[in-house]
């Protein structure tokens, strides 16, 4: 390649036109002749024994095709990601575990008829006492949600390094704190939706908004005993995922509906149903202790995490693993003893959400570091710099440790972005606060040996007219993977972006690719694609060499042509070459198969800095974010417009987590059922000055040096804002969200006689 024309450019997304014209079809926009509509009957009680389900009135309503209960289901009635213990429908005689458990389903001629019929299903319950906190669920005598999980322990992780007891003994300063993080809802704008039908050969097709077509197919097979080779799952363009659509959501229910009703069925969850049904961010209680020398050197870290797993497993082990490594962050701490537990409760379900446990840990870690800085009367930035991880260090056993350490570069950039600390306006109730935090975000580069899944594929095909198709198994959630793959293919063949077509997320026609999560697609699919394009390029160059009577090594791809190096006049148009190859029977469709360096659960890592200036009004409690800066080492910025979009979006989602979002249940019942109660940031909530920058220290094994960045964007902003507010008010923050009322409570506590 003589020049890189598309990589690094903010080219237009390949899916943008469809999205701005309303032409793009999402799962709920599909239509099919004979299409019926489904509706799920959810349990109103977090824990209750289902005594009797009476469907007669519902079944008799006009337009109702069928009403389904557990006894109608084929198969095991069980599915689930790491433990297959999730029922499709709770049968009579069994207990519900949360208000998102389903007891019946209706298929009817319209969505409205299905809703009315669902409301007419009469269910008798014996309401039982629910476990509504991890501590309650861990206590002796608590009932067990799952026979296999004694003490309601979903999973446990421990990490020990060195000798913490000795290290704390020698430490000159010790700080400790307990932090509480709430349940955060993904709040994607498109709720769970899908269409399912059986074709004339009886093959099941499920077309749905999802993040893992392969996992969905596995779950349908597991629950309904349909042979795997007769299940086809296609992911649509997704209206937001963030992990909330990573586990199977409605697809098993939908498959059952179509198989039993014998008609195509569309199922779309209402916002209220969506808020209840899919797993959210694990609420946590994190107790953390740091021991340091008076000069700020960190000696020891000790801590305990208790996470609310909700009723089912589904990602808790992975989340805990990431929480554990994020407790360390980008710092060198030679003695560590940490432990994390996820506990089953009858609250809403917990699972995957961008960051996967790292955001919770980042809050505890960075807030405790500022507490330590105050105890040492040391500048918080200096404290962190003193303990930055060294180049070449391998942070934990699951990290490859092959990323150059760019923390000093990030420090330089963030300090420049922030400039001098602003001063408070005179005679004002406003106090200014500033904070700088660092993070070491991770992205998946490896296999998932726990499930025996390894490797990522991508296929590229050059058509007879020189157009190119890419087939890849990831899902377009809005993160832009489709465009990234198009850019790479365009780059490899030196073609304009418009000549590339990308088709994604089909469990049959896309090569196996695994899940869309863990910020893994650019790395995995990108590398697989480059292997595929490499093969096709070789074929094209061989044929071109023959036609131009030169060695393949003397040729290059440039400006939609294949040219002889140094003799640009002697060239073949790419389209013409493609036609010749096509006619001569050359193979122009190749699959690349990428396996990671070590065939086990591995992460690459990168570095991030965030800083914020806030003005907190002690009279009104209002929090103004004067400036927020995020600098992320992206390895290589493949598309700056999209990359900055990730930084802005992740920061705002992180802002919401810290300052306003809390999905509240009381006694396992939903208290924040809509966007009116569950506030997410609006256009009014963005910082006054909002700076984002991607720096580039190329990742040795990344495609074009790129790293995964989707989750990184979310980890750092919450603790930065909290520390800035703490700095402004001179208080310790224990719990998020920290909003207006908490500012006022803190001020009142400081000055009991005023306010």
């Amino acid at each position, binding site marked *: 390649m003589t020049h890189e024309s598309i990589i690094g450019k*903010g080219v*237009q*997304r390949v*899916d*943008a*036109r*469809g*999205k*701005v*014209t*309303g*032409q*793009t*079809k*999402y799962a*709920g*926009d599909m*239509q099919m002749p004979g299409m019926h509509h489904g509706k799920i009957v959810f349990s109103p009680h977090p824990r209750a024994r289902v005594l009797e389900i009476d469907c007669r009135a519902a079944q008799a309503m006009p337009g109702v095709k069928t009403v389904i209960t557990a006894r109608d289901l084929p198969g095991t009635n069980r599915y689930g990601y790491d433990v297959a213990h999730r029922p499709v429908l709770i049968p009579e005689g069994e207990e519900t575990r949360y208000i998102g458990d389903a007891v019946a389903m209706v298929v009817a001629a319209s969505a409205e008829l299905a809703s009315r019929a669902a409301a007419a299903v009469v269910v008798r319950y014996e309401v039982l006492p629910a476990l509504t906190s991890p501590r309650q669920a861990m206590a002796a005598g608590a009932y067990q949600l799952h026979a296999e999980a004694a003490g309601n322990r979903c999973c446990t992780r421990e990490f020990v390094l060195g000798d913490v007891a000795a290290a704390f003994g020698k430490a000159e300063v010790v700080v400790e704190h307990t932090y509480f993080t709430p349940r955060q809802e*993904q*709040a*994607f*704008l*498109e*709720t769970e939706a899908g269409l399912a039908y059986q074709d004339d050969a009886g093959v099941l097709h499920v077309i749905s908004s999802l993040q893992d077509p392969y996992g969905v197919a596995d779950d349908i097979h597991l629950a309904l005993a349909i042979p795997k080779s007769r299940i086809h799952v296609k992911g649509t*363009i*997704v*209206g*937001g995922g*963030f992990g909330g659509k990573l586990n199977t959501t409605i697809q098993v229910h939908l498959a059952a509906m179509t198989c039993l009703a014998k008609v195509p069925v569309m199922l*779309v969850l*209402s*916002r209220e149903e969506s808020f209840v049904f899919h797993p959210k961010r694990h609420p946590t209680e994190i107790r953390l202790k740091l021991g340091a020398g008076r000069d700020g050197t960190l000696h020891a870290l000790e801590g305990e995490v208790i996470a609310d797993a909700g009723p089912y497993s589904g990602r808790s082990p992975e989340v805990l693993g990431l929480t554990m490594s994020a407790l360390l962050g980008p710092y060198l701490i030679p003695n560590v003893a940490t432990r994390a537990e996820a506990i089953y409760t009858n609250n809403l379900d917990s699972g995957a959400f961008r960051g996967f446990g790292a955001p919770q840990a980042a809050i505890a870690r960075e807030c405790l570091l500022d507490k330590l800085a105050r105890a040492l009367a040391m500048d918080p930035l200096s404290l962190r710099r003193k303990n930055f991880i060294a180049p070449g260090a391998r942070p934990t056993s699951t990290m490859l440790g092959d990323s150059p350490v760019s923390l000093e570069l990030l420090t330089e950039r963030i300090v420049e972005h922030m400039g001098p600390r602003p001063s408070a306006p005179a005679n004002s109730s406003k106090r200014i606060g500033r904070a700088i935090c660092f993070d070491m975000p991770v992205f998946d580069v490896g296999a998932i040996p726990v499930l025996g899944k390894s490797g990522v594929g991508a296929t590229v095909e050059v058509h007879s007219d020189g157009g190119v198709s890419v087939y890849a198994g990831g899902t377009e*959630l*809005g*993160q*832009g993977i489709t465009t990234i793959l198009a850019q790479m293919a365009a780059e490899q063949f030196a073609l304009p972006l418009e000549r590339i077509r990308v088709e994604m997320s089909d469990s049959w026609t896309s090569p196996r690719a695994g899940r869309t999560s863990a910020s893994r697609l650019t790395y995995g699919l990108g590398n697989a694609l480059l292997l595929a394009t490499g093969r096709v390029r070789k074929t094209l160059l061989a044929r071109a060499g023959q036609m131009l009577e030169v060695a393949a090594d003397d040729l290059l791809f440039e400006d939609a042509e294949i040219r002889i190096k140094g003799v640009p006049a002697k060239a073949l148009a790419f389209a013409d070459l493609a036609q010749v190859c096509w006619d001569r029977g050359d193979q122009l469709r190749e699959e690349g198969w990428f396996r990671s360096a070590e065939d086990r659960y591995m992460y690459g890592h990168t570095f991030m800095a965030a800083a914020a200036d806030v003005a907190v009004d002690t009279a009104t409690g209002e929090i103004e974010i004067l400036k927020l800066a995020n600098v992320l080492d992206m390895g290589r910025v493949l598309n700056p*417009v*999209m990359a*900055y*979009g990730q*930084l*802005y*979006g*992740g*920061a*705002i*989602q992180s802002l919401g987590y810290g300052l306003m979002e809390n999905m509240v249940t009381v006694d396992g019942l939903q208290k924040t059922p*809509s*966007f*009116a109660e569950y506030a*997410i*940031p*609006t*256009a*009014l909530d*963005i910082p006054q000055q*909002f700076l984002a920058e991607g720096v580039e220290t190329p990742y040795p094994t990344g495609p074009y040096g790129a790293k995964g960045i989707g989750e990184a964007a979310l980890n750092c902003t919450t603790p930065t804002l909290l520390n800035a507010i703490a700095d402004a008010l001179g208080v310790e923050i224990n719990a998020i969200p920290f909003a207006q009322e908490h500012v006022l409570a803190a001020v009142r506590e400081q000055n009991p006689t005023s306010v």
Partner: protein
Amino acid sequence: MTRHSLVLKVNGESHALQVEPHRSLLDVLREELGLTGTKKGCDAGDCGACTVLLDGAPVNACLVLAVQADGREVSTIEGVARDGQLHPLQEAFIEHGAAQCGFCTPGILMNSIALLRETPSPTRTEIQEALSGNLCRCTGYVQIIEAIESVAGAGK
């Protein structure tokens, strides 16, 4: 339930329909007219994904009964581009990366069109206030605001 006859004029085209009085404009647009560009995000007026223009004014279509729109002009995202020519706001959204998952995009575009008609050169704060009823979870709003500012600046 008795159906009411009404005429919905959508993007300049008239449709004679028979709908039950409780049906929302959103559901009738999507289900009776097949205009699925307008999205249902919450069906409760909280998210703005269903924003359409009713006689030029932005409304949440989930909160308007179809019968209320009888004889009035409804503008949806499908009517924004003319003969394949994109509206300057649509071009700007593409240029600035203002659409990621795209689900909030039609609602935000309709609202922005109404904003710029009403206030051709809005301040950043005015843009933020106008958009405050349109939730976006992906973009963090920055590139959306920049896209609108770029068109407003050009005096379109």
